[in-house]
């Protein structure tokens, strides 16, 4: 009975629609400027998802609108449709194919996740402190030289941010880096970024932290290694006492890296 459906034509329209939607949507730069090595990887994953999603969406739309056009009852028609209860092969197909698609998406995501969080030797460690409603940063290599409200990092070098919250949960997000991590009171959280484009960006708090949440921002400067070293040398404040205490209290790292004791 499915022979009565123009299955080939429906598939062709689905594919055409997928191509058109994907072609338009992949062109648009949804996530904004890219300024870290993780950004192109995440954006590429998003584009792959856009193509897969365009296919699923087109398929559903073609199936729906063809049915509405073809099987709409004539006014006054009180008869019933054909008593079809199902089709085992079709049901197996629409269980298995989506399973394959989502497992592919999961596997690919896992690969990208491993790549963007892969630690490298020679990384710079920066301690991040958040409190209602301000950010500050300390550079352990310089005996905890301390900067309030302004984060500088060198370009093309992996940075490991070790994050501490002093009061409630805050979240560290630089949209151009595509990296986000909550700062949680009582534990140290970690994020890895390799900025690859010089410039000035904004650090945004993305976890509701009180009435000042919307304005809890910091300036982020990515600059050449020489400029960065000069800037750090120019820092004359040392880490204040309460933050030093937080550092000492929360030396255990949470979460541990994959396969490094915690897994």
């Amino acid at each position: 009975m499915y022979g009565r459906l123009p299955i080939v034509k429906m598939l062709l329209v689905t594919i055409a629609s997928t191509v058109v939607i994907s072609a338009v949507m992949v062109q648009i730069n949804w996530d904004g400027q890219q300024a870290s090595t993780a950004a192109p990887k995440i954006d590429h994953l998003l584009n792959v998802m856009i193509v897969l999603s365009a296919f699923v969406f087109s398929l559903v739309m073609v199936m729906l609108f063809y049915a509405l056009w073809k099987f709409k009852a004539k006014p006054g028609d009180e008869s019933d449709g054909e008593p079809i209860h199902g089709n085992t092969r079709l049901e197996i197909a629409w269980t298995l194919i989506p399973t394959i698609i989502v497992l592919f998406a999961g596997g690919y995501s896992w690969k990208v996740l491993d790549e963007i969080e892969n630690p490298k030797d020679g990384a710079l460690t920066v301690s991040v402190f958040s409190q209602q409603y301000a950010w500050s940063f300390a550079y352990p290599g310089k005996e905890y030289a301390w900067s309030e409200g302004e984060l500088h990092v060198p370009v093309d070098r992996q940075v490991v941010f070790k994050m501490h919250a002093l009061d409630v949960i805050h979240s560290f997000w630089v949209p151009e880096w595509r990296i986000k991590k909550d700062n949680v009171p009582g534990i140290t959280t970690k994020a890895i970024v390799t900025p690859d484009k010089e410039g000035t960006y904004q650090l945004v708090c993305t976890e509701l932290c009180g009435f000042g949440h919307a304005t809890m921002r910091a300036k982020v400067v990515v600059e050449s290694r020489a400029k960065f070293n000069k800037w750090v040398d120019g820092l004359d404040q040392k880490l204040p006492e309460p933050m030093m205490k937080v550092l000492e209290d929360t030396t255990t790292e949470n979460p541990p890296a994959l396969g490094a004791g915690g897994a």
Partner: protein
Amino acid sequence: MVAAIKNPGWWRGLFGAIAFGAFGFGLVIALRAISDLPLYQTEQTGYPHVIVPAITAPLGFLWGFGCFDYWLRWAAGMPTIPEDHSQHGAKSWKDYFRFNTDHKVIGVQYVVTTFIFFFLGGLMAMLIRAELAQPGTQIVEAATYNSLFSTHAVLMIFVFVIPVFAGLANYVLPLMIGAPDMAFPRLNALSFWMLPLAGILFIGSFLAPGGAFDAGWTGYAPLSTGAPLGQSFFNLGVQFAGASSIATALNFLVTIITMRAPGMTFWRMPLLVWANLSTSLLVVAATPFIAGVQFMVLFDRALHTNFFDFGAGGDVISYQHIFWFYSHPAVYIMMLPGFGIVSEVISTHARKPIFGYRLMALALIGIVVLSYSVWAHHMFVAGMFSWLRVPMMITTLLIAVPTGIKIFSWLGTLYFGKIHTYSTAMLFALAFIVTFTIGGISGVMLGMVPIDIHVSDTYFIVAHIHFVLFGGSVFTIFAGVYHWFPKMTGRMYDEKLGRVHFWGTLVGTWGTFIPMHWVGMDGMPRRVADYAAQFGDWNLLISAFAFLLGAVQLVFVYNMVVSWRFGPKAGANPWRANSIEWQVSSPPPIFNFTEIPRVVGGPYEYGIPGAKHAIMAGEGTEAEVPAGEKSVVGTGS
């Protein structure tokens, strides 16, 4: 006056609330006085003289209103009042304002009450969008803004979407399975009356010093443990709403398992019954977790138990694990009953059996099982153990499979049918397929850890949850209300106004929530009163569509109210549906059936000559049954 206090009702309820409230207040003051403490403790997390009465006064109201009378008499060994059915059925509108044990009355009470909360929550959404129309703060200051979106979400989730489904099912489910009422009618009435109390506690928090709770509906510790008094009202309101849902879910489980009409095997239950069975399984096991975690927050605040106090050995992230262990299944608690409604509506209006009925039922069970194993996908950036992210991602993505089965099965149901789109219910059911597909797709994207790291806690999340909760759940709620309106009221609604409401809602939903995906990916965080100027134009557009969406709901109210009063009389079965609730009058008689129907076939046997789902009183003879049974046994073969 004395009689008014003696007999259960509003006066004794008021008396009970005042008396129990005064007792709670007095107890706190007396204990503090003999302990040589200052009588009033007004640190912002304290106020025991407010918190304790906020527990006792609602209980006093429930006692006074008569919710416990029968049980108390029985427990005390007093002669119980013989059931004279005076608490059953509604003869006038006044009966809807009494303690009533009739599932049909309770169903209407639920739906009307929850829609009142829907409109209050909607008004808050309008204020939120007015504030966000321009960058900067214009209408409300940041702290009030936080209270507004927190209360908006809490009203919509706890006293609208979850209970309105319980209300619709309360009305139609016993009818559908051929039962005269729910299994525990008094418990059913108690469940309903706890609900407005929860809503009043949520809204009443605006009167608390420091304003309404403002830590989001998620109420993450330690923001919530240190928040002003309003947060305690949230903690308590969740208890009443949670107890109400748990009791209702138990009631549904027992009703469905034990009270089906003879012949209604599990594989002959309508999918709405399957959906409520699955939902109830989620509610009874998951809801105690949110009740527990809100008690832990309340105890941290009032009793210094330090569950989440990081300075005293507490663990901040454990709040999120416990909270999401409920709140992810809650997403399905808010969606599965809607799946059931859509199945009923589509099958009826396409004049076709549900395509793949058994797989549809199994998909519901699959979602129930999987939904317990995905909670940590809300925590990919929360700082939890990193290895946990990958298995949670895989289970999250896999849950798209049973959901996809449902979408494809609804589409399959349409094929070779006779699709009627004159009913607004069918329009909402069809539009639901489209919007829910988009919400599902963005959900799969969010399940992928690297994408989630970027868009977590941005407007992309706001867009996603509104696509699944408004474009998903609320569309199915509208479909359900329109579909069963003739059954519940005995009158027809106006399809022209229904269409205006439908198209306005569809355009409003898409216009409001589609652009939110874009501003979120581009860098706008959620839960902010103020935002970067670059997002200004999009937000103005979003607000304009949001106001359209809000305004068009007034058409719905007008249609419902006027049609209920003046609409043309509805016949027993205006949609020519097969399930049992349509085989009795509209509205149904007091105990639903003069004689319990006998079920002889599946619920969706459209197009099979002579097929019958159930034999009603006075219909058919014994001799005819085997023939009918023979022709309609199989489904999904």
